[in-house]
Protein backbone atom coordinates (compact mmCIF):
# COMPACT_ATOMS: atom_id res chain seq x y z
CA UNK A 1 0.00 0.00 0.00
CA UNK A 2 2.69 2.41 1.01
CA UNK A 3 4.69 1.60 -2.12
CA UNK A 4 2.17 3.27 -4.38
CA UNK A 5 -0.41 0.58 -5.00
CA UNK A 6 -3.53 2.47 -5.86
CA UNK A 7 -6.99 1.28 -4.94
CA UNK A 8 -6.04 0.30 -1.44
CA UNK A 9 -5.63 3.69 0.14
CA UNK A 10 -7.47 3.70 3.44
CA UNK A 11 -9.36 6.96 3.86
CA UNK A 12 -8.81 8.13 7.45
CA UNK A 13 -11.85 8.22 9.77
CA UNK A 14 -11.24 11.89 10.45
CA UNK A 15 -11.68 12.70 6.75
CA UNK A 16 -14.81 10.52 6.39
CA UNK A 17 -16.55 12.15 9.37
CA UNK A 18 -15.30 15.60 8.36
CA UNK A 19 -16.72 15.21 4.86
CA UNK A 20 -20.00 13.98 6.32
CA UNK A 21 -20.14 17.07 8.54
CA UNK A 22 -19.45 19.26 5.51
CA UNK A 23 -22.24 17.57 3.54
CA UNK A 24 -24.77 18.10 6.35
CA UNK A 25 -23.64 21.72 6.69
CA UNK A 26 -24.06 22.34 2.95
CA UNK A 27 -27.50 20.69 2.99
CA UNK A 28 -28.61 23.11 5.71
CA UNK A 29 -27.08 26.03 3.78
CA UNK A 30 -28.88 25.08 0.57
CA UNK A 31 -32.24 24.87 2.40
CA UNK A 32 -31.72 28.23 4.11
CA UNK A 33 -30.57 30.03 0.96
CA UNK A 34 -33.41 28.57 -1.12
CA UNK A 35 -36.14 29.21 1.45
CA UNK A 36 -35.06 32.39 3.25
CA UNK A 37 -32.77 34.34 0.96
CA UNK A 38 -34.36 35.79 -2.15
CA UNK A 39 -31.64 36.22 -4.74
CA UNK A 40 -34.05 36.26 -7.65
CA UNK A 41 -32.63 34.44 -10.64
CA UNK A 42 -29.44 33.66 -8.72
CA UNK A 43 -31.13 31.19 -6.37
CA UNK A 44 -31.00 28.43 -8.97
CA UNK A 45 -27.26 28.73 -9.79
CA UNK A 46 -26.44 29.01 -6.09
CA UNK A 47 -28.33 25.78 -5.33
CA UNK A 48 -26.52 24.09 -8.22
CA UNK A 49 -23.13 25.31 -7.01
CA UNK A 50 -23.86 23.92 -3.53
CA UNK A 51 -25.07 20.61 -4.98
CA UNK A 52 -21.97 20.49 -7.19
CA UNK A 53 -19.74 21.09 -4.18
CA UNK A 54 -21.48 18.29 -2.27
CA UNK A 55 -21.13 15.93 -5.23
CA UNK A 56 -17.44 16.83 -5.52
CA UNK A 57 -16.93 16.05 -1.82
CA UNK A 58 -18.58 12.65 -2.25
CA UNK A 59 -16.61 11.78 -5.38
CA UNK A 60 -13.28 13.00 -4.02
CA UNK A 61 -13.36 11.55 -0.53
CA UNK A 62 -16.14 8.97 -0.12
CA UNK A 63 -15.43 7.45 -3.53
CA UNK A 64 -11.72 8.11 -2.89
CA UNK A 65 -11.08 9.36 -6.41
CA UNK A 66 -8.39 11.61 -4.91
CA UNK A 67 -6.20 8.59 -4.20
CA UNK A 68 -7.51 6.33 -6.93
CA UNK A 69 -5.94 5.19 -10.17
CA UNK A 70 -5.84 8.26 -12.46
CA UNK A 71 -7.61 6.37 -15.25
CA UNK A 72 -10.80 6.39 -13.16
CA UNK A 73 -10.58 10.17 -12.87
CA UNK A 74 -10.20 10.29 -16.65
CA UNK A 75 -13.30 8.11 -17.13
CA UNK A 76 -15.29 10.21 -14.70
CA UNK A 77 -14.15 13.50 -16.27
CA UNK A 78 -14.98 12.30 -19.80
CA UNK A 79 -18.44 11.25 -18.67
CA UNK A 80 -18.92 14.61 -16.98
CA UNK A 81 -17.81 16.49 -20.11
CA UNK A 82 -20.34 14.59 -22.20
CA UNK A 83 -23.10 15.45 -19.74
CA UNK A 84 -22.17 19.13 -20.23
CA UNK A 85 -22.16 18.66 -24.03
CA UNK A 86 -25.53 16.90 -23.85
CA UNK A 87 -27.06 19.66 -21.74
CA UNK A 88 -25.58 22.67 -23.52
CA UNK A 89 -26.18 21.45 -27.07
CA UNK A 90 -29.77 20.61 -26.22
CA UNK A 91 -30.22 24.08 -24.75
CA UNK A 92 -28.71 25.64 -27.89
CA UNK A 93 -31.73 24.20 -29.63
CA UNK A 94 -34.51 24.57 -27.10
CA UNK A 95 -33.56 28.02 -25.80
CA UNK A 96 -33.52 29.67 -29.21
CA UNK A 97 -36.48 28.09 -30.93
CA UNK A 98 -38.43 30.74 -32.81
CA UNK A 99 -35.48 33.14 -32.81
CA UNK A 100 -34.34 32.23 -36.30
CA UNK A 101 -35.28 34.51 -39.18
CA UNK A 102 -37.14 31.79 -41.02
CA UNK A 103 -39.62 31.40 -38.18
CA UNK A 104 -42.16 34.05 -37.38
CA UNK A 105 -42.67 35.46 -33.95
CA UNK A 106 -44.84 33.35 -31.66
CA UNK A 107 -44.28 30.34 -33.88
CA UNK A 108 -43.62 28.05 -30.95
CA UNK A 109 -46.28 29.55 -28.72
CA UNK A 110 -48.75 29.17 -31.59
CA UNK A 111 -47.91 25.53 -31.86
CA UNK A 112 -48.17 25.09 -28.12
CA UNK A 113 -51.57 26.76 -28.08
CA UNK A 114 -52.81 24.55 -30.89
CA UNK A 115 -51.50 21.50 -29.13
CA UNK A 116 -53.26 22.57 -25.95
CA UNK A 117 -56.52 23.03 -27.83
CA UNK A 118 -56.17 19.64 -29.44
CA UNK A 119 -55.60 18.06 -26.05
CA UNK A 120 -58.66 19.80 -24.64
CA UNK A 121 -60.62 18.61 -27.65
CA UNK A 122 -59.44 15.07 -27.03
CA UNK A 123 -60.47 15.34 -23.40
CA UNK A 124 -63.93 16.52 -24.40
CA UNK A 125 -64.23 13.65 -26.84
CA UNK A 126 -63.24 11.19 -24.14
CA UNK A 127 -65.73 12.66 -21.73
CA UNK A 128 -68.42 12.74 -24.41
CA UNK A 129 -68.84 16.51 -24.15
CA UNK A 130 -69.79 18.66 -27.16
CA UNK A 131 -66.90 20.27 -29.05
CA UNK A 132 -67.61 23.96 -28.33
CA UNK A 133 -64.54 25.43 -29.96
CA UNK A 134 -64.90 23.64 -33.26
CA UNK A 135 -65.25 26.87 -35.27
CA UNK A 136 -61.92 28.38 -34.35
CA UNK A 137 -59.91 25.20 -34.46
CA UNK A 138 -59.60 24.58 -38.20
CA UNK A 139 -58.33 28.13 -38.70
CA UNK A 140 -55.68 27.68 -36.04
CA UNK A 141 -54.68 24.27 -37.25
CA UNK A 142 -54.29 25.64 -40.78
CA UNK A 143 -52.16 28.46 -39.39
CA UNK A 144 -49.88 25.98 -37.72
CA UNK A 145 -49.60 23.82 -40.83
CA UNK A 146 -48.46 26.80 -42.89
CA UNK A 147 -45.58 27.37 -40.57
CA UNK A 148 -44.80 23.72 -40.50
CA UNK A 149 -44.47 23.75 -44.29
CA UNK A 150 -42.19 26.77 -44.13
CA UNK A 151 -39.92 24.90 -41.84
CA UNK A 152 -39.39 21.97 -44.20
Amino acid at each position, binding site marked *: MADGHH*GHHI*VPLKILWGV*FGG*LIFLTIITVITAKQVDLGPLNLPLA*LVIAGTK*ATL*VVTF*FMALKWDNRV*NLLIFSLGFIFVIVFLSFTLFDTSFRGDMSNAEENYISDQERIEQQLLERQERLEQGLPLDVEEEEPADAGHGDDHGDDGH
Partner: protein
Amino acid sequence: MSTTIASTEHDTQGGHGASHDDHPAFLQHHFVNADQQFDAAKMGMWLFLITEILLFSGMFVAYTVYRAWHPEVFLEASTLLDWKLGGLNTLVLLASSLTVALSIHYIQKGNQAALFWNLLITILLACVFLVVKYFEYMAKFEHGIFAGEGFDPHGVSHGVDYAKYNIPYAKQFFSIYFIMTGIHGFHVIVGIILMTWLLVKARLGHFSAAWYTPVELTGLYWHIVDIIWIFLFPLMYLI
Protein backbone atom coordinates in the same frame (compact mmCIF):
# COMPACT_ATOMS: atom_id res chain seq x y z
CA MET B 1 1.03 -20.91 -15.78
CA SER B 2 -0.69 -18.06 -14.05
CA THR B 3 1.27 -18.82 -10.93
CA THR B 4 4.45 -18.41 -12.90
CA ILE B 5 3.40 -15.03 -14.21
CA ALA B 6 2.27 -13.94 -10.79
CA SER B 7 5.57 -15.00 -9.30
CA THR B 8 7.53 -13.18 -11.98
CA GLU B 9 5.50 -10.08 -11.34
CA HIS B 10 6.14 -10.30 -7.63
CA ASP B 11 9.85 -10.69 -8.33
CA THR B 12 10.01 -7.62 -10.52
CA GLN B 13 8.10 -5.60 -7.96
CA GLY B 14 10.35 -6.76 -5.23
CA GLY B 15 7.47 -8.47 -3.47
CA HIS B 16 4.85 -6.66 -1.47
CA GLY B 17 3.48 -8.78 1.29
CA ALA B 18 2.35 -11.91 -0.54
CA SER B 19 4.86 -14.70 -0.79
CA HIS B 20 5.85 -16.02 -4.22
CA ASP B 21 3.98 -19.27 -3.86
CA ASP B 22 0.91 -17.55 -2.56
CA HIS B 23 -1.89 -17.60 -5.12
CA PRO B 24 -5.05 -16.45 -3.33
CA ALA B 25 -8.26 -18.31 -4.14
CA PHE B 26 -10.02 -15.11 -5.24
CA LEU B 27 -7.38 -14.30 -7.88
CA GLN B 28 -8.61 -15.31 -11.32
CA HIS B 29 -6.07 -16.88 -13.62
CA HIS B 30 -6.18 -14.16 -16.26
CA PHE B 31 -4.93 -11.49 -13.88
CA VAL B 32 -1.30 -10.93 -13.05
CA ASN B 33 -1.97 -10.21 -9.41
CA ALA B 34 -4.63 -9.16 -6.93
CA ASP B 35 -3.96 -5.46 -7.47
CA GLN B 36 -4.49 -5.74 -11.19
CA GLN B 37 -7.70 -7.68 -10.64
CA PHE B 38 -8.93 -5.08 -8.17
CA ASP B 39 -8.07 -2.18 -10.48
CA ALA B 40 -9.75 -3.84 -13.46
CA ALA B 41 -12.93 -4.47 -11.47
CA LYS B 42 -12.95 -0.93 -10.18
CA MET B 43 -12.42 0.57 -13.62
CA GLY B 44 -15.29 -1.53 -14.94
CA MET B 45 -17.45 -0.15 -12.15
CA TRP B 46 -16.49 3.44 -12.99
CA LEU B 47 -17.45 2.81 -16.62
CA PHE B 48 -20.80 1.46 -15.47
CA LEU B 49 -21.29 4.45 -13.18
CA ILE B 50 -20.71 6.79 -16.13
CA THR B 51 -23.57 5.06 -17.98
CA GLU B 52 -25.68 5.60 -14.86
CA ILE B 53 -24.80 9.29 -14.81
CA LEU B 54 -25.65 9.56 -18.51
CA LEU B 55 -28.98 7.80 -17.89
CA PHE B 56 -29.91 10.35 -15.27
CA SER B 57 -28.45 13.24 -17.26
CA GLY B 58 -31.08 12.57 -19.95
CA MET B 59 -33.75 13.20 -17.35
CA PHE B 60 -31.91 16.21 -15.93
CA VAL B 61 -31.77 17.66 -19.45
CA ALA B 62 -35.54 17.11 -19.79
CA TYR B 63 -35.97 18.90 -16.47
CA THR B 64 -33.73 21.79 -17.56
CA VAL B 65 -35.48 22.25 -20.91
CA TYR B 66 -38.97 22.27 -19.44
CA ARG B 67 -37.86 24.51 -16.61
CA ALA B 68 -36.25 26.93 -19.03
CA TRP B 69 -39.51 27.04 -20.98
CA HIS B 70 -41.84 27.36 -18.01
CA PRO B 71 -39.84 28.54 -14.99
CA GLU B 72 -42.85 29.99 -13.17
CA VAL B 73 -44.79 26.73 -13.45
CA PHE B 74 -41.88 24.69 -12.09
CA LEU B 75 -41.43 27.14 -9.22
CA GLU B 76 -45.09 26.91 -8.30
CA ALA B 77 -45.41 23.14 -8.77
CA SER B 78 -42.33 22.47 -6.65
CA THR B 79 -44.02 24.13 -3.66
CA LEU B 80 -46.39 21.16 -3.60
CA LEU B 81 -43.50 18.89 -2.67
CA ASP B 82 -42.66 18.66 1.02
CA TRP B 83 -39.10 20.00 1.32
CA LYS B 84 -38.91 18.80 4.94
CA LEU B 85 -39.40 15.19 3.87
CA GLY B 86 -37.02 15.72 0.95
CA GLY B 87 -34.48 17.25 3.33
CA LEU B 88 -34.88 14.39 5.78
CA ASN B 89 -34.24 11.93 2.96
CA THR B 90 -31.16 13.92 1.95
CA LEU B 91 -29.74 13.58 5.46
CA VAL B 92 -30.65 9.88 5.50
CA LEU B 93 -28.85 9.23 2.21
CA LEU B 94 -25.80 11.28 3.24
CA ALA B 95 -25.58 9.27 6.45
CA SER B 96 -25.85 6.02 4.47
CA SER B 97 -23.04 7.22 2.21
CA LEU B 98 -20.93 7.77 5.32
CA THR B 99 -21.67 4.31 6.71
CA VAL B 100 -20.88 2.61 3.41
CA ALA B 101 -17.58 4.53 3.29
CA LEU B 102 -16.95 3.47 6.89
CA SER B 103 -17.68 -0.18 6.05
CA ILE B 104 -14.96 -0.03 3.36
CA HIS B 105 -12.60 1.72 5.77
CA TYR B 106 -13.04 -1.03 8.37
CA ILE B 107 -12.75 -4.00 6.03
CA GLN B 108 -9.55 -2.47 4.65
CA LYS B 109 -8.30 -2.78 8.21
CA GLY B 110 -9.64 -6.33 8.42
CA ASN B 111 -12.44 -5.48 10.85
CA GLN B 112 -15.23 -7.82 9.74
CA ALA B 113 -17.58 -6.96 12.60
CA ALA B 114 -17.47 -3.22 11.84
CA LEU B 115 -18.05 -4.03 8.16
CA PHE B 116 -21.15 -6.02 9.09
CA TRP B 117 -22.63 -3.34 11.35
CA ASN B 118 -21.96 -0.49 8.96
CA LEU B 119 -23.54 -2.41 6.10
CA LEU B 120 -26.55 -3.14 8.28
CA ILE B 121 -26.97 0.54 9.19
CA THR B 122 -26.63 1.46 5.52
CA ILE B 123 -29.41 -0.98 4.58
CA LEU B 124 -31.65 0.35 7.37
CA LEU B 125 -31.06 3.95 6.27
CA ALA B 126 -31.87 2.96 2.68
CA CYS B 127 -35.14 1.44 3.95
CA VAL B 128 -35.93 4.64 5.87
CA PHE B 129 -35.42 6.55 2.62
CA LEU B 130 -37.89 4.31 0.80
CA VAL B 131 -40.48 4.51 3.58
CA VAL B 132 -40.35 8.32 3.53
CA LYS B 133 -40.60 8.23 -0.26
CA TYR B 134 -43.61 5.88 0.00
CA PHE B 135 -45.48 8.33 2.23
CA GLU B 136 -44.58 11.21 -0.09
CA TYR B 137 -45.88 9.33 -3.11
CA MET B 138 -49.07 8.24 -1.36
CA ALA B 139 -49.85 11.81 -0.26
CA LYS B 140 -49.57 12.85 -3.91
CA PHE B 141 -51.51 9.90 -5.37
CA GLU B 142 -54.40 10.60 -2.98
CA HIS B 143 -54.90 13.96 -4.63
CA GLY B 144 -54.53 12.84 -8.21
CA ILE B 145 -50.91 13.91 -8.62
CA PHE B 146 -49.65 11.27 -11.06
CA ALA B 147 -47.11 11.09 -13.83
CA GLY B 148 -48.52 11.54 -17.31
CA GLU B 149 -52.14 11.45 -18.38
CA GLY B 150 -53.47 10.50 -14.96
CA PHE B 151 -52.57 13.96 -13.64
CA ASP B 152 -55.74 15.35 -12.07
CA PRO B 153 -55.10 17.36 -8.89
CA HIS B 154 -58.11 17.61 -6.60
CA GLY B 155 -59.07 17.79 -2.94
CA VAL B 156 -57.79 19.78 0.00
CA SER B 157 -55.48 18.65 2.79
CA HIS B 158 -53.30 20.50 5.29
CA GLY B 159 -54.68 23.75 3.95
CA VAL B 160 -53.41 23.03 0.44
CA ASP B 161 -55.91 23.26 -2.37
CA TYR B 162 -54.60 20.75 -4.89
CA ALA B 163 -56.96 21.85 -7.63
CA LYS B 164 -55.01 25.12 -7.68
CA TYR B 165 -52.11 23.20 -9.19
CA ASN B 166 -54.06 22.11 -12.23
CA ILE B 167 -52.13 24.51 -14.43
CA PRO B 168 -50.54 23.88 -17.83
CA TYR B 169 -47.14 22.15 -17.65
CA ALA B 170 -47.52 21.23 -13.96
CA LYS B 171 -48.15 17.77 -15.40
CA GLN B 172 -44.72 17.87 -17.01
CA PHE B 173 -43.10 18.86 -13.73
CA PHE B 174 -44.71 16.02 -11.82
CA SER B 175 -44.07 13.53 -14.60
CA ILE B 176 -40.37 14.40 -14.46
CA TYR B 177 -40.50 14.31 -10.66
CA PHE B 178 -42.07 10.85 -10.52
CA ILE B 179 -39.91 9.36 -13.27
CA MET B 180 -36.66 10.72 -11.82
CA THR B 181 -37.36 9.91 -8.18
CA GLY B 182 -38.92 6.60 -9.26
CA ILE B 183 -35.84 5.49 -11.19
CA HIS B 184 -33.70 6.79 -8.34
CA GLY B 185 -35.84 4.81 -5.89
CA PHE B 186 -35.38 1.72 -8.06
CA HIS B 187 -31.63 2.22 -7.71
CA VAL B 188 -32.05 2.41 -3.94
CA ILE B 189 -33.91 -0.93 -4.03
CA VAL B 190 -31.12 -2.48 -6.13
CA GLY B 191 -28.63 -1.08 -3.61
CA ILE B 192 -30.52 -2.68 -0.73
CA ILE B 193 -30.49 -6.06 -2.52
CA LEU B 194 -26.75 -5.76 -3.23
CA MET B 195 -25.93 -4.75 0.33
CA THR B 196 -28.06 -7.54 1.79
CA TRP B 197 -26.00 -9.95 -0.30
CA LEU B 198 -22.83 -8.26 1.02
CA LEU B 199 -24.19 -8.49 4.55
CA VAL B 200 -24.63 -12.27 4.25
CA LYS B 201 -21.16 -12.65 2.78
CA ALA B 202 -19.72 -10.41 5.49
CA ARG B 203 -21.43 -12.53 8.14
CA LEU B 204 -19.91 -15.64 6.61
CA GLY B 205 -16.50 -13.99 6.78
CA HIS B 206 -15.91 -13.91 3.03
CA PHE B 207 -14.30 -10.49 3.07
CA SER B 208 -10.89 -9.54 4.35
CA ALA B 209 -8.38 -6.72 4.04
CA ALA B 210 -6.90 -8.65 1.09
CA TRP B 211 -10.20 -9.08 -0.77
CA TYR B 212 -13.23 -6.83 -0.42
CA THR B 213 -13.86 -5.92 -4.07
CA PRO B 214 -17.68 -6.36 -3.96
CA VAL B 215 -17.88 -4.02 -0.95
CA GLU B 216 -15.77 -1.41 -2.74
CA LEU B 217 -17.81 -1.60 -5.96
CA THR B 218 -21.20 -1.55 -4.23
CA GLY B 219 -19.93 1.39 -2.19
CA LEU B 220 -19.11 3.31 -5.39
CA TYR B 221 -22.58 2.50 -6.74
CA TRP B 222 -24.20 3.69 -3.55
CA HIS B 223 -22.32 7.00 -3.61
CA ILE B 224 -23.56 7.64 -7.16
CA VAL B 225 -27.14 7.01 -5.97
CA ASP B 226 -26.42 9.57 -3.23
CA ILE B 227 -25.00 12.09 -5.71
CA ILE B 228 -28.08 11.83 -7.94
CA TRP B 229 -30.22 12.66 -4.92
CA ILE B 230 -27.93 15.56 -3.97
CA PHE B 231 -29.00 17.17 -7.26
CA LEU B 232 -32.62 15.99 -7.18
CA PHE B 233 -33.31 17.49 -3.76
CA PRO B 234 -32.70 21.19 -4.49
CA LEU B 235 -33.98 20.99 -8.07
CA MET B 236 -37.27 19.30 -7.18
CA TYR B 237 -38.04 20.49 -3.66
CA LEU B 238 -36.32 23.82 -3.10
CA ILE B 239 -36.16 26.00 -6.17
